């Protein structure tokens, strides 16, 4: 399954990695929004698992989690969304992103099996660092589900090899020390970080946190293998609710177009 993920990072341009919160505004709406991401040109989909205490997220994703949970979204609903997405889009990689407690509450083996069953390619767990990898990573790797690691501006050269050990799928560079949806890092610091990370790994490096405009996405696309956009999409869902899909598609298309031409200039 990791093949689907590696094939979605083409050599000649950056991939667009698009995040939405599962079940926002209701579980019934997520399918159309996921389709809109694909139609708009997203190469990789990150489906956020809502959590009551998303302490790494800014207000936009916090509010999305609250909307989703208030609408009654359960873990079983999220895997149903993933399973149906996989049937409609057999070639688009799907990554589950979220927090440790909802992922481990039934045991890591249960979660890994549910991922396989639903066609989930990879998992990003925000609050399981390499030091606690055994809580989830072993079970996922045993089922060939990629464990995507995060590197941040505070990850120094000494620590980086630990993060890269057992990493798969792609490496997610969190370009800002902070929470999601806030300011964007300076282009120069992103460029420096990507160069440093790529020296240590053959995995594609995707850069996220604070990316909002097509121009920002294009700038990152010039230096990185992937651009992650989350809060800005989630805000469109927040604004348009059940009618969000066409707005999401148009916005994602504007990002995708910018990324596809970024390296031509």
């Amino acid at each position, binding site marked *: 399954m990791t093949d689907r993920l590696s094939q979605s990072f083409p050599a000649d341009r950056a991939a667009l990695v698009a995040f939405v919160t599962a079940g926002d505004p209701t579980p019934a709406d997520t399918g159309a929004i996921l389709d809109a991401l694909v139609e708009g040109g997203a190469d990789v989909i990150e489906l956020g698992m809502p959590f009551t205490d998303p302490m790494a997220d800014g207000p936009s994703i916090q509010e999305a989690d609250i909307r989703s949970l208030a609408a009654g979204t359960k873990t079983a609903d999220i895997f149903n969304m993933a399973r149906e997405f996989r049937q409609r889009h057999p070639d688009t990689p799907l990554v589950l992103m979220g927090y440790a407690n909802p992922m481990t*509450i039934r045991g890591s083996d249960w979660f890994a099996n549910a991922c396989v069953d639903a066609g989930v390619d990879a998992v990003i767990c925000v609050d399981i660092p390499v030091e606690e990898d055994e809580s989830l990573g072993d079970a996922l790797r045993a089922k060939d589900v990629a464990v995507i690691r995060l590197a941040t501006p505070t990850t120094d050269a000494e620590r980086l090899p630990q993060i890269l050990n057992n990493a798969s799928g792609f490496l997610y560079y969190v370009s800002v020390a902070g929470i999601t949806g806030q300011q964007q890092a300076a282009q120069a610091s992103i460029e420096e970080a990507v160069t440093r990370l790529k020296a240590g790994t053959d995995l594609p490096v995707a850069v996220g946190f604070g990316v909002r405009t097509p121009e920002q996405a294009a700038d990152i696309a010039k230096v990185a293998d992937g651009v992650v956009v989350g809060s800005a999409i989630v805000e469109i869902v927040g604004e348009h609710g059940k009618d969000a899909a066409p707005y999401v598609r148009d916005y994602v298309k504007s990002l995708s177009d910018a990324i596809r031409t970024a390296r031509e200039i």
Partner: protein
Amino acid sequence: MNDTPNSFRNQPDDRGHFGEFGGRYVAETLMPLILDLEKHYRAAQADPAFEEEFNDLLQNYVGRPSPLYYAESLTEEVRKDAPEGKGAQIWFKRDELNHTGAHKINNCIGQILLAMRMGKTRIIAETGAGQHGVATATVCARFGLPCTIFMGATDVARQKPNLFRMKLLGAEVVPVTSGAATLKDAMNEALRDWVANVHDTFYIIGTAAGPHPYPELVRDFQSVIGKEARAQMLERVGRLPDMLVAAIGGGSNAIGLFHPFLDDPDVKMLGIEAAGHGLDKEHAASLAGGGPGILHGNKTYLLQDEDGQITEAHSISAGLDYPGIGPEHSWLKESGRVDYDSATDKEALDAFQLLCRTEGIIPALEPSHAIAAVTREAVKMDRDKIILANLCGRGDKDIFTVAEALGTEI
């Protein structure tokens, strides 16, 4: 069943695990920082000058050692309802007499000394009842560091005196409106601030929870309670108490009292969670009504649903209103070394008034839960037995809450 370890006092392991609990479940951005904190804490532990400064401040600024007090009048009152020959002696460790009115200051002194060793120039903290916020604001004023306190908006409303105290001490208080706007949400917001300000900010966590090494270092700083109590008891009565009792929210006052006694097999220990409206209704008893999970950097017992979503706690005491508990308590429960029970809002209110009437001491609502349990236990124990409870805070901050609960206008 569990094998009995050689010592109950050698946790956590070098990865910060207390058995299956504890650990370092934080975002990667914070991970280098907590590794650095651990390194500096180990260096401080090996530095006699650190201990000397800590002890000097505890003695001359906090007012330690706190007295060990035999509550004779309360003991006599409890004996009135006890069967013949029953009614254990009730003793209190008077940590409510500390500067700032609770045990929280012990830990804040230790952590701000660590923060300064690390060269940090800004302090953040979360607070529930406001006691930890006041203690943090106090040490920040004393050492001249700017301080931001995150406090749930619900708690801001019910703990106005402490809010004003923090402001007088120069702290910026940020009301947190997410979730139920209580302690859990204040902790989320403090973590969000920390991750965005890792370069200059030290997070003074108020309870023996969070990512390693916090549960260990908070316990160590609070263990002054148990060390003093153990020495005082030996000096006063020539033996150890038969039972220790302490209230538990996150569990810092309880672990501070218990830890120095853990390898004394004849000393029973009882931690008291907040049963709120009752264990079958809304409560804050993670051990009694929750299960193992991961939140705020550690694996521990949590109030949660089947999907691992955290459920809201309830207690009349803002300081106990938290859906988790320190990981060492989860381990001590599973190992069987410490027993855990609970007291309801109503039982705590009754105990609050009982202590006011019998001893002339207005306790905080947090230790009122422990006092409720002490009165329950004392009537079951022989008269020559000794129960020692931690009176971890004074009740000035709670008089408005208590007045409202009793239907009294002030």
